């Protein structure tokens, strides 16, 4: 008995040391864009979309697990592997699209910061530059370890959505029922929303970011099972939080028949219905998510591009040692923050471009991953097993279909 307790503690300690990449990557999924989508889904369709989070969890685990596995087995980032196996031209074009899509994603994160500034009654001309400087300073002055700790704390702040969910006093029976029982509505708006909810879940930068951060953590093969647990926990946590966002909006806005288009409108509409605490928690969640993602997206871009092009990489290096890395990182933050401060900037085209470039890149990234993870020379005995491979192919085809669907629906809108 004593021995078992000791073993349990030892395993917990190892897990705590390995934990991070999976949880962080999954949580960034609930960024400003994600929160908007989930709020709108809840406000317009009530609980009827909640069931879709279960397939999302499965897809997220399958795809992110492969990244983790490749990182642990090969010790190389995804961009590294693509360059080494598919050559420099493919990598170059993939990186160009990745920069594009991440830049526009970053802009929408800063839009999230601007929106939450307005919710808190602070001028966006103050909060956006402040956050940009904070984000820049964190990476340039930090080490991998300290940065990861900050990120994990940011993950904790997502709990504000759970609290706001409870404050809206939902009918839990109904929530559970609708999450296990799929209800289809065959109309255009519902299908578009469904594609939107699933399609925003898996973005190309996530695979690059997760693989690089597992590599940077130098996780051992024998501790791989803990890394997998990290991915699984991340997928569950992120979707539970997303469910809470849907629940808050469904329970208040949907019941009152209030239509919203953005997360900011959602928060404002919540104030009279669910009280000011619920409003503040919702707004704080948006700010936290936006700042957090505004950190990770430029970082992930700089990582992937420098890996692929063979430039020096790393949070642990100084500016002079890795000039391209920091230049790219800084440029994306500056552009991201300054576009939001332009007067009369329109957010819809920015969202469209970011979704479109994601949709173009994701099929390629997923196919590359499938080829890499099944490459015996790289993965040895850790390639996908037969059944798992079929499951993966189905998931990947589904995701490709959805992201192409998202690409077209966003233009039809």
């Amino acid at each position, binding site marked *: 008995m004593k021995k078992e307790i000791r073993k349990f503690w030892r395993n917990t300690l190892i897990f705590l040391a390995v934990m991070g990449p999976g949880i962080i990557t999954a949580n960034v999924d609930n960024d400003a864009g994600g929160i908007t989508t989930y709020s709108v889904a809840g406000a317009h369709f009530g609980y009827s979309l909640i069931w879709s989070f279960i397939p999302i969890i499965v897809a997220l685990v399958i795809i992110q697990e492969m990244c983790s596995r490749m990182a642990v*087995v090969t010790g190389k980032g995804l961009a590294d592997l693509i*360059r080494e196996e598919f050559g420099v*031209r493919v990598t*170059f074009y993939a990186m160009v699209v990745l920069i594009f899509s991440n830049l526009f994603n970053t802009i929408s994160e800063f839009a999230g910061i601007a929106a939450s500034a307005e919710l808190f009654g602070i001028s966006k001309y103050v909060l956006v530059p402040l956050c940009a400087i904070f984000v820049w300073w964190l990476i340039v002055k930090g080490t991998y370890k300290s940065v990861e700790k900050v990120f994990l704390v940011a993950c904790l702040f997502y709990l504000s959505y759970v609290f706001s969910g409870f404050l809206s006093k939902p009918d839990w029976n109904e929530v559970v029922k609708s999450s296990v029982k799929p209800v289809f509505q065959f109309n255009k708006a519902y299908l578009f929303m469904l594609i939107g909810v699933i399609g925003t879940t898996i973005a190309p930068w996530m695979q690059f970011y997760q693989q690089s951060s597992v*590599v940077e953590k*130098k996780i*051992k093969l024998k501790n791989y099972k803990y890394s997998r647990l990290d991915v699984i926990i991340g997928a569950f946590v992120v979707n539970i939080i997303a469910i809470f966002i849907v629940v808050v909006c469904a329970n208040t806005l949907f019941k009152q028949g209030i239509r919203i288009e953005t997360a900011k409108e959602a928060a404002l509409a919540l104030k009279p219905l669910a009280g000011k605490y619920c409003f503040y928690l919702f707004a704080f969640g948006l700010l936290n998510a936006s700042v957090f993602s505004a950190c990770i997206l430029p970082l992930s871009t700089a990582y992937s591009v420098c890996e692929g092009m*063979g430039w020096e990489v790393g949070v642990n290096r100084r500016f002079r040692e890795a000039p391209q890395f920091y230049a790219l990182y800084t440029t994306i933050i500056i552009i991201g923050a300054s576009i939001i401060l332009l007067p009369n900037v329109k957010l819809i085209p920015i969202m469209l471009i970011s979704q479109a470039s994601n949709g173009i890149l994701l099929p390629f990234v997923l196919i590359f991953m499938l080829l890499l993870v099944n490459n015996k*020379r790289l993965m*040895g005995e850790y390639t996908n097993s037969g059944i798992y491979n079929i499951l993966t192919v189905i998931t990947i085809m589904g995701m490709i279909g959805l992201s192409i669907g998202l690409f077209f629906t966003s233009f039809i809108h």
Partner: protein
Amino acid sequence: MVNQDKLDIAQEKAKHMFIYFSQLMDKPVFDKNGEWVGKLYDIIIQPTEVYPQSSHLVLRKGFPNRKYAVVKWLDIQEIDNKDIRFKLDKSEIRFEEIHNNKQELTLRRDILDQQVVDVYNHKVIRVNDIHLLFVDHSLMVAHVDISTRGLIRRLRFEKAVDFLVSLFNRNAKYLKEEHLISWKHIQPLSVNPVSMAIKIDVAQKHLHNIPAADLGEIFLDLNAKDQIALFKSLDITTKARIFTHIDFKTQKSLIEELNTNEVVEILNNIPSDEATDFLEGLPRDTTHEILSSMESKQSKKLSQLLGYSSDSAGGLMTTEYIAFPKDTTVEAVLKQIKDRTFKVEPAQFIYIVDENSHLIGSTNFRHLILANPQDSIQNAVFRKTYSVRLDSSVKELAYLMEKYKYYSIPVVDANNVLQGIITVDDILSQVIAIAWRRLKKIKILAKQ
């Protein structure tokens, strides 16, 4: 060296004899009747000499069901940057599903786009292109290209970018600068899938010439898998040199990949103070396991050292030193020093002890060389040798060594029996650590 001369002459004779691998890659290949056979996919090289020569080429055809064929270099009639023509007939070339050349080194799979070690600049680099030289109908790997221009050439934008740059500045640095690194300074890192070790050949000797501290830094630049692969393929001296210059975390992750015998071999080849520093950080069970598989003499010594507090003289000292009984003649001492091999720690002083290992005094090489060879070593001793006790503090040590300008100081026990020595580099790293902590405290206070 013949190859070096050959290369130098060739370089002067004909600059146009150089070709980039990217200019050959995917070029069409024809048989003797001018019929299309496939595309050039890869080149297999023979890494036997400083500049390896091409031995086979790999063809590829078909999509998506790709097929490969390996053809001897001798079967090539003509090769240039437009196409390749064989002496063979199409029917003689057999295509297969995979090309099985795990053991060889190939340009596209093992070098192009891969990370390699530049042993001259002590850096890990990524290869953008490979510079080849035509020699006697075969190709010789001359340089690797790591420049941005090489990257742009691979993307097939070279002409466009060259044109754009020359519009702005005809003499731009970009157009003239070549960032080529000679192959003799390149250590490939491709891992042999069978032995899980790096395919090491001639170049390993270059790794020997790199200062240990730089070698450690190169090592830290590699990813974990390459670290282990490279480490396993090195000889024990290089292993020991790297091991003493990497941080504890990396040491630990390396050890986990090795078996106990290999660990013991490394620990036997590094100075005992480094070995104790490392063992101190390990869990107690692991330390026990390692010590119990060592030779009893060595393990006794290490476990004794492990018993001392890490910031006392006992914890800092190494047990590798040169000591001789007082009656030994100077000639015999010099001969023994010549014959003995020493570990990494520099041997600056020679200590003189009596029959019960009590410390009598010390001397240095200059004294020894100047002394009469027939004299006993006692006559070459300094006037007085200061020593410290096992429990002396770092401060005390630093103070004494600074005062008497010692490179190393002997450590004795309560009965004046010589136990070990402490060298100045170990003290320096301790003192620097203390100074840093103080400096940080001062900075924090100033901020408040």
